[in-house]
């Protein structure tokens, strides 16, 4: 008897309505808030500017930086190409070393698995070290809904959690907050905090430390993320700056790690590449202060019970698509956010997803889809870029984000059918493919001179062009196109004169205008 495998179907995306992979407004509308917030713009401008400069310093000092990027890209591409095999190897190795592996198709399954594991310990609170995967699944909200209290221990995550806010950055979740705002959040939300707390960063950190220390020493269960999972040895890795992560990973009796399936890398030795690429790209440091590696359980040392939850949540769907596969190479360093002129002005909330910025604009629609509904906010993400290319230059694993955005835009227009925009594009192409029509259209554009009036400037245009004319003047179209000039007496005469200048200079040997041009080697610049 043969097994019925069902009809072939595309792998599922992250389900609509769960987790944090979709905002409630399209990007241009959501961006309006950040753009109008002067304080946020200043905070972001200063923070990203500082990180940008630091990153350039530390990547510039490595003679093999480009080779490292190539290596990182090659390892990730290899891992994505044989993901099923590597994940099974990882499961085998973790299990052999005393850990338990769980597979979660989506956010709901992952949240339920974690809640069940926490309940089984009899505890009603967990400490957490920064984990993008659980932010993506909305684990904290789920745990609270079933009576379990999660405590974020990463300082920035703690600030965001206490403020009932959402992270605005992959690496620096509270990048949009300044120290005065943080002081106020601590005064309002940390029980028993010194009412005389000032805004000195060391004092703020000390206040958070006092609050968290008690949690570290009493919590029985911790939830962590993972930067890398090594298939060869079953080793998990977390890279962090504060040491709070290490306390989470070593003190509690039970450790539950939630890891996106794309985080697997083949060999232990591959860490050599990524531990150089990641800190330099993300915080602009040669090495991060704390790198924790753990493999299964070790009697008498660290957690007695270790669980690894492998999260799909749309990753297999992304993997099935060439564009999505490239985006899964991301190691979440946030270098693309820090160099993005759009992110710098709007902040991360405008993207509506756990993953903001250029990589988020590619990854989020891949994981959660963007075509479920016409007004799906994720449809606007591929357009949230001027395609300036700074992200591609900064990416440590060489993800060609601008090309991926162009491809996603194409996928989007292919699925949306006939829209006014498509009709306009079709009409423009139809005119441009016929030079005679094109010339007629160019003549018609001369009408712009009528709107421009006497000063030759157009300062107001009708929608959809009003977005342009709200902040930019436009010069009136000229009387004559280039092609008509080129064909005219005047054009012919001008080019004849230019050719004559060249002839005179070459005959004269050293004309004052040197139209023959000096060659590079003669130019001392």
């Amino acid at each position, binding site marked *: 008897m043969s097994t019925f495998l069902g009809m072939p179907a595309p792998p599922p995306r992250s389900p609509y309505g769960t987790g944090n992979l979709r905002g409630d407004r399209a*990007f*241009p509308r959501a*961006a309006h808030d950040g*753009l109008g917030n002067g304080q946020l713009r200043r905070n972001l401008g200063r923070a990203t500017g500082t990180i940008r400069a630091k990153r350039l310093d530390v990547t510039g000092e490595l003679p093999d930086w480009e080779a490292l990027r190539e290596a990182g890209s090659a390892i990730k591409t290899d891992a994505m190409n044989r993901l099923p095999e590597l994940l099974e190897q990882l499961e085998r190795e973790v299990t052999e070393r005393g850990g338990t592996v769980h597979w979660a198709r989506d956010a709901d399954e992952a949240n339920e698995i974690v809640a069940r594991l926490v309940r089984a310990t009899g505890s009603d609170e967990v400490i957490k070290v920064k984990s993008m995967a659980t932010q993506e699944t909305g684990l904290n909200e789920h745990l609270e809904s079933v009576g379990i209290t999660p405590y974020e221990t990463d300082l920035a995550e703690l600030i965001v959690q206490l403020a009932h806010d959402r992270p605005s950055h992959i690496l620096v979740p509270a990048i949009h907050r300044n120290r005065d705002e943080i002081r106020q959040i601590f005064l309002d939300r940390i029980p028993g905090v010194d009412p005389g707390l000032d805004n000195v960063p060391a004092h703020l950190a000390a206040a958070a430390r006092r609050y968290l220390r008690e949690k570290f020493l009493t919590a029985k269960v911790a939830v962590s993320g993972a930067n890398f999972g090594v298939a060869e040895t079953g080793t998990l890795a977390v890279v962090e700056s504060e040491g709070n992560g290490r306390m989470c990973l070593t003190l509690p009796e039970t450790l539950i790690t939630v890891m996106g399936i794309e985080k697997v890398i083949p060999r232990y030795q591959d860490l050599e590449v990524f531990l150089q690429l990641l800190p330099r790209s993300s915080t602009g440091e040669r090495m991060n202060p704390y790198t924790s590696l753990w493999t299964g359980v070790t009697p008498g040392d660290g957690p007695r019970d270790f669980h690894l939850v492998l999260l799909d949540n749309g990753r297999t769907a992304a993997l099935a698509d060439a564009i999505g596969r490239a985006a899964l190479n991301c190691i979440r360093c946030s270098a693309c956010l820090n160099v993005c*002129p*759009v992110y710098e*002005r*709007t902040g991360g909330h405008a993207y509506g997803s756990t993953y903001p910025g250029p990589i988020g604009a590619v990854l989020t629609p891949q994981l959660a889809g963007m075509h479920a509904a016409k007004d799906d906010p994720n449809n606007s993400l591929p*357009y*949230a*870029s*001027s*395609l*300036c*290319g*700074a992200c591609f230059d900064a990416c440590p694993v060489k993800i060609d984000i601008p090309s991926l955005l162009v491809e996603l*835009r*194409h996928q*989007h*227009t292919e699925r949306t059918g006939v829209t006014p*925009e498509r009709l306009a*594009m*079709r009409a*423009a*192409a139809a005119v*441009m*493919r016929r030079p005679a029509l094109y010339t007629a259209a*160019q003549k018609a554009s001369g009408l712009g001179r009528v709107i421009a009036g006497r000063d030759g400037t157009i300062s107001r245009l009708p929608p*959809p062009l009003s*977005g*342009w004319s*709200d*902040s*930019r*003047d436009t*010069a009136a*179209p*000229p009387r*004559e*196109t*280039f*092609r008509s000039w*080129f064909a005219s007496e005047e*054009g012919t005469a*001008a*080019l004849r004169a*230019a*050719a004559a*200048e060249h002839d005179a200079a*070459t005959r004269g040997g050293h*004309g*004052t*205008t*040197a*139209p023959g*041009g*000096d060659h*590079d080697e003669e*130019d001392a*610049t």
Partner: protein
Amino acid sequence: MRIGLFATCLGDTLFPDAVKATAILLTRLGHDVVFPPDQTCCGQMHINTGYQREPVPLVRGFADGFGDASIEAVVMPSGSCAGSVRHQHRMVADRYGDAALRAGVDAVAAKTYELSELLVDVLGVTRVGAYFPHRVTYHPTCHSLRMLRVGDKPLRLLRAVEGIDLVELPGADSCCGFGGTFALKNAETSTAMLHDKTASIAATGAEVCTAGDSSCLMHIGGGLSRIRSGTRTLHLARILAATRTTPDVLTEATA
């Protein structure tokens, strides 16, 4: 050298002076400039907005028009159009074209250059005999900088201009916020980027902001005009084509 000139749709229609300057400059340097009359648009606006089916005839028209073997090089006064020809036409040909189109696209892409690349890399010249006695700042447009990697070629050309007072633009490599239809779809974000760019330009005290792309200059110039900064925009080709005997008319200076 026999050089095919692509005016670009924006250059042909709205900024003919930049294209005229390109033709005059190359002719003055002793080259034969030809203008295939059936040319229109490279299709970049379509491709970047998400439409790859519609511009297939444009891509084909470009490959046919400039495919002529007697044309040794194709030049355009636009980094972004050169970037589209070199990097995006192949994508369109692969998806909606045939093997012949792909071959045609590849052949033309291999001889396509933005103006500063043609001058420095192909023609081997940085001192073009220009005279331009004004305070100038240079904005490296994103596609010239990152798609074409023109590097400091435009600056080397500008430094060799007689009489020029070249001042550095702070934050030069930040995008001006144009991005084609990005300026319409995300008008508010685009404006925020533009404001930072025009403020940096105004702070240099330059009379002229130059670049290798009329589109970015249209955006920047529109912003400078709105804030009445007094700084004009002028395409790089116009500065390089200005001489003592035929200076560019600054009073009409737009890109």
